[in-house]
């Protein structure tokens, strides 16, 4: 079945100034603008482009979270995904939901939906974990092409150009596979008005992690969340020698 599964996460909008809760248990999310994780937008765009090239028949958008996660799925549908799956996780379970549980859910869905390709954003901008793609591949025992800046389907293989510290690495992996999208993979389209209208009619299935046989109990406990320390003013120096002297003085070198 030539089906692509795309994961989309609802996160605090990138433009919002995030504030820590007074009790330091997390960040303020109530009444704060949320939107689709930017790397997930790139993942959706890539999946829809592959379908437009007739390389896949169907793109399914998946999101794990409370009721509002369906807004994010609806946006993915408006960008061109065919249908959605909302895996409902609420309350305390949602607060402690992390990459390991999500990747178990995606692995179960990838098998259930007989997906040939799972495309995710490389990381979410709220937790910056950069783990879900890799864990999903490991749980499925599928190859992975992470930090993709280029994806090409060649028969039953995927050629992925990966952005790595040293430059670009090109790999070829067998499908079914997991790919995670990096910044330069594509420029996500704006949802057009006709597609927003069409998205209304597309189906979003609702299920719980238990329906997939996934246990979402967290093995992690967040102890405390703090703001980053305020940047202190720097010191200006006149010459390179002064700079070296100051660095030696502070014990940095």
């Amino acid at each position: 079945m030539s089906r692509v599964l795309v994961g989309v996460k609802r996160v605090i909008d990138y433009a919002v100034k995030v504030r820590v809760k007074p009790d330091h248990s997390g960040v303020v999310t109530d009444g704060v603008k949320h939107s689709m994780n930017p790397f997930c937008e790139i993942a959706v765009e890539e999946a829809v482009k592959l379908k437009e090239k007739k390389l896949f028949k169907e793109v399914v958008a998946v999101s794990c979270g409370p009721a509002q996660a369906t807004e994010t799925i609806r946006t993915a549908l408006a960008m061109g995904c065919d249908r959605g799956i909302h895996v409902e996780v609420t309350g305390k379970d949602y607060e402690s939901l992390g990459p390991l549980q999500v990747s178990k859910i995606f692995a179960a869905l990838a098998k259930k939906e007989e997906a040939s390709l799972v495309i995710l954003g490389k990381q979410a901008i709220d937790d910056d974990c950069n783990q879900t793609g890799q864990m999903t591949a490991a749980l499925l025992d599928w190859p992975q092409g992470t930090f993709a800046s280029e994806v090409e389907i060649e028969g039953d293989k995927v050629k992925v150009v990966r952005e790595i510290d040293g430059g670009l690495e090109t790999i070829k992996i067998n499908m079914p596979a997991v790919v995670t999208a990096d910044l330069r993979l594509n420029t996500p389209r704006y949802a057009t008005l006709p597609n927003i209208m069409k998205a209304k009619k597309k189906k979003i299935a609702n299920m719980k992690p238990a329906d997939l046989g996934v246990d979402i109990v967290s093995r992690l406990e967040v102890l405390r969340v703090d703001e980053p320390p305020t940047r202190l003013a720097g010191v200006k120096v006149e010459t390179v020698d002064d700079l070296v002297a100051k660095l030696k003085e502070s014990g940095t070198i």
Partner: protein
Amino acid sequence: CPSLELSFSSLAELPEMHQMMRQTCRDYADRELAPIAGKLDKEHLFPAQQVHELGSMGVMAVEVPEELGGAGMDYLAYALAVEEISRGCGSTGCVVSVNNSLYIGPILKFGTQEQKEQWITPFTTGEKVGCFALSEPGNGSDAGAASTSARQEGDEWVLNGTKAWITNSWDASAVVVFASTDKSLKHKGISAFLVPMPHPGLSLGKKEDKLGIRATSTANIILDDCRIPLGNMLGSPGAGFKIAMQTLDSGRIGIASQALGIAQAALDCAADYAHKRTAFGAPIGKLQAVQFKLADMAVAVESARLLTWKAAMLKDAKKPFTKEAAMAKLAASEAATFCSHQSIQVLGGMGYVTDMPAERHYRDARITEIYEGTSEIQRLVIAGQLLKENAP
């Protein structure tokens, strides 16, 4: 378009589809329009590429049914779209509004199926825009006094006269022109005609050098024995004045939305500045004088917005909306000039220079009290409706 059962609660929170559509327009305006709006204004540049992109998003033909190439949405969605686009760039919002309400609007309402396919479909993609020619050098508010003439010669109409203040004129591929076939019938002798651009017998006057919305082109359209086929009459003979008035009724909701976008942009600019600028040891947002201004601006915008949405929803429900549309346009345009004026005041010296967008909002806002019916005409329309409702 599917009829939405919009209720009073929609004024408090928009339906999901409208929210999504508003968000996509806002994203586009923030990322693609706001960064270039200053340049478009300074260099009087028509945003051709952006109009194309908006066309492919469906924004240039929001209410047009899908079969004709439009987005198939309702007028409330259109009002939201124009506001968000105008918030990024007042000029671009104007282009969107003129194409949707003034050009496509009358053809959609009064055109034959053939006319719709010929004159609407190519204008949904953003590749072509249209314009609307009612005003003349001799009459603006006094639309019934139109002196542009149309005489029948064989199987053609021959148009003669000059139209003034035509927005989009230098960038348009077609125009809806109002001309009189019989001056003795006064306003009942006016008919509407569809003329392609360019066309023999149609020429453009010089581009006006305007105070604001400088990325739009405004000029006279001169008709000198301009010949068009008989089939280019829009609607029935003598219906031109009625077509113009009904078109302007709807167009007012578009201009109200444009004014709201400009007003909101001015308010956002002032509120942002109030956080950042310090005076007397604290951000100026702490000062009551500034707070009162921001509060007054917010009330002006929000009340005009609700009037605009109500007018749009009445139109979508096919209920009379003339009075509400006039109220919306009046309130929104006066909110735009008020907010942009106060925004400059909050910014002080910085509001007077082109480094900040406040001065552009001030210049862009001013036209909204003039075109598509001056504030004075709006007051006449509102009073007229009120007195009709209250007649003994």
